[in-house]
Each structure stands twice: as structure tokens, then as C-alpha cells.
């Protein structure tokens, strides 16, 4: 079957790709565009490792078809740093040891950035519920939640 031609914007760059009907946005990002920072942990929308934003809205890219990206703006972990300058969340995740194996980290960071854009002063409970769709099996979430709240405080002060 003929592939679909899709035009979209990914991390600010206009991007075209061809994809099959059944390919998810996650499949396209990884297998076609080789943006492998977005991870697949389950393929069923339960783990959040594939979290990206579409027009600023947080989604599991494994639950979105590649063709649905037509005309929309996608942001992935690869677009989070500004050149060599890490986003404050990225910096703080390193400084506060908010990752162990690091496989959930891209999804967690994309979700946390989206939270802070909506709510610059979240409570611990708000952080925990916002990140409830991002499974982490290593950290027990403690250092992740602390890093997000600490970054929020620093960004408010900046």
C-alpha cells in the first residue's frame, strides 16, 4: 500500500516523512526519523516513556498515528535544550540525581516541562498526579518530584 506523505514541524524544524497507515507517531519518530530519545516502554499508553507534545498538548506518541501529525508542531526531548544550554529541568535532573537508568527520563522531562509551563508553582501532590502517567521503576519518584519542584522554584526566582 502506498505510504502517506506527512508535513509537520518537529522541534521547530519543518519535517516531511512518509509513513504507513498503521505506523504510530512513535514509530515514525524512531524508525523513520531516528529521533530515538523518545522511548517505547509498552506501546499501549501506560508507561509514558514515549511522551511528546503536539501543539503544546502532552500525548503518548504510541497512541497517535504518524499521519495525525500532519500540520501540527511536535516537540520531543531532542528539542528541549537550547543548543548547548540545558533546560533548567535537565540541569537539575543531573544535579539532583533524578535519574538512575534514564529510560523514563525523556518522557518525564517532557511531561514536567509541560507542567511548569501551565503551573509554575505546583504542589507536591500536583507534581505527583501530573507525572502519574510516567512510570519510573528505579527511583521511587522521590528525587524526580524533588527535582521538578526545585526547578519550579528556581525558574520562578529567575
Amino acid at each position, binding site marked *: 500500500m502506498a505510504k502517506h506523505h506527512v508535513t509537520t514541524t518537529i522541534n521547530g524544524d519543518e519535517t516531511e516523512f512518509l509513513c*504507513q497507515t*498503521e505506523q504510530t507517531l512513535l514509530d515514525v519518530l*524512531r*524508525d523513520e526519523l*531516528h*529521533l*530515538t*530519545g*523518545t*522511548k*517505547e*516502554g*509498552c*506501546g*499501549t499508553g*501506560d*508507561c509514558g*516513556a514515549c511522551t511528546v507534545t503536539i501543539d503544546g498538548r502532552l500525548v503518548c506518541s504510541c497512541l497517535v498515528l504518524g499521519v495525525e501529525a500532519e500540520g501540527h508542531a511536535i516537540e*520531543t*526531548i*531532542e528539542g*528541549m*535544550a537550547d543548543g548547548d544550554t*540545558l533546560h533548567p529541568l*535537565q540541569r537539575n*535532573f*543531573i*544535579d*539532583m*540525581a533524578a*535519574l*538512575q*537508568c*534514564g*529510560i*523514563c*527520563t*525523556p518522557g518525564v*522531562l517532557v511531561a514536567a516541562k509541560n507542567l511548569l509551563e501551565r503551573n509554575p508553582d505546583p504542589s*507536591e*501532590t500536583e*507534581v*505527583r*498526579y501530573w*507525572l*502519574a*502517567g*510516567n*512510570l*519510573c*521503576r*528505579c*527511583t*521511587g*519518584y*522521590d*528525587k*524526580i*518530584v*524533588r527535582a521538578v519542584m526545585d526547578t519550579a522554584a528556581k525558574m520562578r526566582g529567575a
Partner: protein
Amino acid sequence: MPDEVKTEYKWVGKRNPRPDGVDKVTGRAKYGADLYLPGMLTGKILRSPHAHARIKSIDTSAAAALSGVKAVVTSADFPDIPKSPGPHGPIIFDFRDFSWNMMAFDKVLYDGHAVAAVAATSESIARQALKLIKVDYEVLPHVIDPVAAMQPGAPILHEDQITEGADEKTAKPSNVYRIPRGEKGDVEKGFAEADIVLEREFTTKAVHQGYIEPHACVADASDDGVELFCTTQGHFVFRSACAKILDMDISRIRVTASEIGGGFGGKNNVYGEPVAIRLSQLARRPVKIVMSRDEVFRATGPTSGAHVRVKIGARNDGTITAAEGEVTYQAGAFKGASVGAAVNCMFSPYDLENAKVWGYDVCVNRPKVAAYRAPGVPMAAFGVESVINELADELGIDPVEMRLKNAAKEGTQNIMGLKYGPIGFIDILEAMKAHPHYSAPLGENQGRGIAAGYWLHAGGISCASVNVSDDGTVTLIEGNPDIGGSRASMAAMVAEELGIDYASVRPIIGDTSSVGFSHLTAGSRVTFATGMACVQAARNAIKVASDRAAKIWGVSEDEVVWEDGHARPAGANVGDHKPMSLAEIAAKAPMTGGPIAGHAEINATGQGPATGAHLVDVEVDRKSGYVTVLRYTVFQDVGRAISPDYVEGQLQGGAVQGIGWALNEEYIYGEDGCLQNPGFLDYRVPVASDVPMIDVCLIEVPNPNHPYGVRGVGETPIVPPQAAVVNAVGNALGIRFNDLPVSPPKILKAIKEAGG
């Protein structure tokens, strides 16, 4: 190499940023599924829909004929290697079990057991090809419960398995692989001396390690050799396993470990890796196999579900006079439940005169179990700690005091005859007793629980190379995948030894051709054993650098010492030579004999066991049965925390995995022996909103057998949570629970039965 353990360091014990941090927060780090090679094919595996069946025939002709399919394999494409319990060099596994688990040879032994595989030019063609493979099964009766599997007349998984260690010699095939035992003193005498004896039975369910990264690999084979890139807890062990399963020379295979997205013991074993190699050999193109989450749950990992019986006798003052334990563990389709570790560890936090433990390693129609963090011990400790809590209640003794009364200390000998060196269990219990959490008030429907845990730890084979560049910076090559920040610890110890900046050391996980055999990243052995290899390699490099300084100064080698990152004259009589830094010596290296380097190949011994104790408050909603974990504090003897950030992380992560194990995680099987919840929606691991902050209290009692006092920290934190959480739920409701998980339906039923 043991020497005096210092206490003041520049890099060790500090919160240094991890050397792989930027790559991991920007998405650049390459995990198992992140490699794409030119011409690469997609491999997919066909799995059994039956719990137990004989394979009468497999017809792959239609799949092979499909356009885009480049190779199809079944067990007929692999050598039928003989049964061989090992050891094979440094590896103790029976590779035939791995081989038969990788691809069913005669029978499928569980729902999800691999039966065939394809490599195709796209994922969708590979999927279509799997549907075209026709397998004719003769379905056999199955058994998934280990107690049922031990009964006469139970379906037998392996006709050639005769029980080892049985009381009576038998030639009859059995599902019981072996019965390890441990005994100390005279338990009958001990029970006779007791004022109170409690005997209780417990059950726990199979739970999965739940790493977020599925198993993934890329194999690229040619007649010259095999390149394998994969997520693994030990690429050297994977190399040996692939060589054995494929009947190849070990050195023909090079394995590069990707970054690893969690393992917890579940990535110690090969699954699809030999299959990818075989497909690549046949297709003569690279082949990638990535498991789906469904495959991860059905065909890898879980740890054993267990039946545990514990009997403990005590005097009225709380002194334990005798303890007896019997554990029955699911091994899954092939032998290898961690029964030995249960025997070794379950009573080991305590100084007991009389103790006896035995256990059954039982094959059942479930996936072959894999190690899971302190393998084998949490289930047994759930029983032991629950009985100790009940004894304390019966005797009217504070549960911490009860443990203090019986706590293991330096010189205590455990059931396996191990005599403890310095051990921090008493310090832990004293710290818990003094902690504000222990005496904080509780509200209505709230309860507090405590429990302790112990794990023995591993040493073993590790290798490291320290290569000094001509600018004085250092490449450190070691052979253990970094699963939770170990690069930071290795770099800190090497920087400390050399006396250079932490940032001047670049730690690299070498592939199997660039450093000597290094055993698994498992058993919390890496910071201990590989750390020791890194320290030894650094000291060897220092010896070379010092000798070069001697040469430059024209003095003898024993007239130079290494202090604070510099070669210095050993005394005033050596002459007035300005100290030389590593960089200065390295810059002159071409003229003094060549590059400066040191390497070490060791088999580390002297690992120190770790004890811990957890304190938890919960609130139970009597209407829904939902348990809220309100507050959690972990106390553990960590030896020396080389990287306190990542030590805390191990303790926090282990505690939360234990909370999941206690409250809701379980493998659920249907009557047909098939797994009913192979996904994260139905197999629910704790999410961020399920848990509170996990407070940690690090107790440092250095291990005298390691240059920096390292004990290993990752295993013990998953041992106490089950009993601690269940104890807390029980205290909130005034009801005791003996079966995990203590899920809402179970709690509601218990409340109803208690007349609530």
C-alpha cells in the same frame, strides 16, 4: 588489597554529577532499541498460546515464501546442546535451559514460550509472516502452583529431572529440582526452651521486575564473526551464553552493552539475542529484535511466587530460642528459583543459636524466573518478619526492642557458617528507635509497621583499565553496564586514587573485546568488585607514573612516592626534585618508555552483607480497601556511600518496588494456565501519586575488605517493605494478613470477616 579505610575524601562520598548525565537528559544515550544499521531487518518471535503442549510439527513454508521475509528459524536451526548444570568457566548457569527457553525444542512449557522466529524487511511483514507459521500442538495438562506441582500425579515438565537433595534417593522424574538446606544448632531443643512458639504460613505471588525498557538487541553476523548490541546486565555473560547456545567460539562474538533501561536481575539472561544472531547468520543482514511489553511479561523475568512456613520460638523476654523455615518457590519452566538465597538469608539479620531452613525449587508452567533484587529473600523475609512482629505483640515487647534483643553483630555466625565482620544492624535499630518517625502520632485507620532485611552480596570477577592520555586526563574502561550511576562511583574512586579532578576521568563501559571478562551487574557487586578493580588499575598506573618520575630524576623507583596527584621524592635525601603531576609525567611519556596505563583483572572476595530496616505508616480506607502510604523511612547499613545520591536512590527505588509487591502487583493466571495481565494497565506498578517521599537514613559501617569500605547497597532495600507495609495495614485494622498482595479486595474481605 584491604587497607586502612580513610574517612576524608575529595571525590568519594560527594554528590558528583554523573558522567553520563547530559546524554541521558537529552535523549542522546543509546539504549537497546536505539541502534539502526544499514540493511537492518526486523526480527519477531512466535510464542506459544498454551501453558504446556507437545510440538507435533511446525510448518514455516508459507512464512518463508512471503515477500520481504529473509529468514525463518525454529529450534531445528539451533544445536541441541546437552544438559550441563555448570559451572562453565565463571558462569554457573545451565546453558541448555537458556537454549530451550530461547526456543522450545520439543514441548512448550508456558504461555509465551518462543517456538519460531522470522526476520523481514519491515515490522508489518514480520507480523504477517508469524501469522503464516502453522504449529500443530498436542495440548498437555499444566500446573502453575508449586505445591500442586509437587503432588503425585502432577504434570511433569522435564522427564529427565530427578530431585537433588531429597531425603530418599529416587529415580522418578520430579518437578522439584533441588532441596537446599541450612541448619545450625538444635531446633528441637530450642523450641522446647521457648515460652511461646508461633507457626504461620504465608503466600506471595509472582511479580515482575518491571524495568521500563523491554529487552532489545541488534545482531550483525558474518563469517568473520558476530557483532551483538544489546541491553544487558552483563555483556560478557551474554557472549558466553550465545557462544554456547550457537556452538561458536566465544572470541568470535563481540558484545557491546547498550545503555540499560532498568534490569533489577531481569536482564541477566539471554532471550532473543541468540535468535537474532541465528537470523542474521541466515539472512546475512543485521537483525533487530525488540520485545513488546506483552512479551516481556509473558516470557521473561518474574520472580517466584512462594509458599513460606515460618516457626519461631521465644522466651518471655523476647530472646529467640529457635527458628525454622520452609520455602517452596516457583522456578517457572526451568530450574533456578532463588531458594538457596532464601535459606542463606531469611534468618540472617539475627543472632540465633538454633535455626533450620530448607526449600524446594519447583518447575511449573510459567516463564523461567529471573533474579529480582535480593533474589529469593523478600518472600521468605515477609514470613520471618511478620512472625517476629506477631511474637513481639504477643509478648508485649516493642518490635524494635524484640529485634535488638536478637540482632546479629560482629562475630555472629549465620546459618551458613558465615561469621560477620563489622555489621550495622544494631546501629540501624537504634537509629530507628530514636527517629521522630518512630514516635509520631497516628490517626484513625492509620497503622505503623516495621521490618528488617538482610542480603549477602556478591564479589566476583571484574576487570578495569586506566589509560592516561598525554594531557594527564584519564580514560577508565570497565566491563559492567551502568544501571544506576555506577560510572560516577568508579570515576570518583579513580580520581581519588590518582589525585586528579573527577571531571578528568572519563569512565567507559568497554565492549567484550576491550577489557577482560567482567561478571554481571548484579548482586550489588559492581561498586564493590568492579570498584576494587578500578582502584587496583589506578594504583598500577600510579606505579608506572612514579617509576617514570624516578627515571626522569635519575633516582631509584623506591625513592618516589605518589601523594596528592604528584610524584614526589620519598625523602630529603633523594634530592631536590620538584613534584611532578600526572599531566607532567604523561607529557614526557613518549620519551620515558611509552604511555602510562594500569590494568587489573581480579576475582573480588570479602564482600560485606548489608542489613536494613524499614518504617512505614499507612492509612486504610475502610470503604474501598485502598491503602495510602503516608510516610516511609529506610534505614540501612551502606558500608561507605561512594555516591550518596545514587545510594539514596537505590534505597528509595527498592522500597517503592517493595510497596508495589506488598499492595498490588501480581501475576494473574486463568484456568487455562495463561497469563491474564501482561501489560502495565493490569499489572500495575506504583506510580508517582501512589507513594510519598521516601526518607533515607544512611548508616555507614565500612566494609574493611574494600579500599573505600564499600558493602553494596541495591539488594537489601527490597527485603523489608512487604512485611513492613503489611504489618502497618494490619495495625491500622487490627487484622493480620499472611498473603500478598494485600490488595483492596483482600482488605475488604478481611474487614467484612472481622465484622467491620
